[in-house]
């Protein structure tokens, strides 16, 4: 499947990364600095319609548009990962996954706000877009 089929914004959760990546626009998905190709090789993407997709390695890497390179003061690349559709999840199920990730990496998250505050914000979010905006 292709990145065009994802409903943005999306989040990308990786078990070995303490933060949760939030990508608002399709044009920014896969955007990487040289040497960071590994980031998109694994992890699980949750889109704003509740779809979950597992990343299965990088299919190809191409040059990013010039304006993005200028904006980031370096030559930027776009990684195109392979996706595998997992399942559609409900809002509450994604909330539980996000909360579990925050609890697992609480030492990281408590630097920004108290973990309890994060968890209550996650609980009170009414839809996935609102939930993802908290993590941004």
């Amino acid at each position, binding site marked *: 499947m292709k990145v065009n089929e994802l409903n943005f914004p999306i989040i*990308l959760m990786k078990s070995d990364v303490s*933060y949760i*990546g*939030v*990508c608002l626009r399709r044009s920014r998905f*896969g*955007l*990487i*600095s040289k040497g*960071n*190709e590994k*980031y*998109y090789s694994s992890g699980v993407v949750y889109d704003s319609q509740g779809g979950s997709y597992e990343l299965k390695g990088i299919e190809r890497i191409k040059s990013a548009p010039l304006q993005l390179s200028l904006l*980031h*003061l*370096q030559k*930027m690349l776009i*990684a195109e990962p392979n996706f595998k559709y997992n399942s559609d999840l409900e809002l509450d199920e994604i909330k539980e996954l996000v909360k579990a990730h925050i609890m697992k990496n609480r030492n990281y998250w*408590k*630097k*920004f*706000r*108290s*973990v*309890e*505050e994060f968890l209550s*914000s996650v609980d009170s979010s009414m839809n996935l877009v609102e939930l993802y905006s*908290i*993590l*941004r």
Partner: protein
Amino acid sequence: MNNGIAGLRKFYGIGRNRFGNNWSMNWGAVRARWEKLGYVAVEDMHHWLISQALMKRYLFLKPIGNQSWNLTRFSSHASHRIWAHGGNYMGTSIGGTEFLYPFTSTPNWFNFGLVPYTAGRLTNSNSFRPEEHE
């Protein structure tokens, strides 16, 4: 002894603030108190001079470092990670952010003081100085 004093204070309501008795100087507690007062929006705050790691090491710095003078706002977690900590967010990092730190991650009162000073020095070094030509 401390429990006794705390118990008496609690019983008589001495030293009780509007948030209960929470006078903790931990960042989470300070931020929660500020949010109740409407001072902090849901944004990333950066400890620009006294870092959280330093406060963790030297506890006496907490009441000094967890104050507004030591905090700068970032609109997103991504910009906070990249610009203030020189880190990587979703595979994107920018080299040399440490050199830009005084301009990207310090508060305006520091920034506005620093930029004219630095710019002034650079300009003066290249500009025509009448006194040297008299």
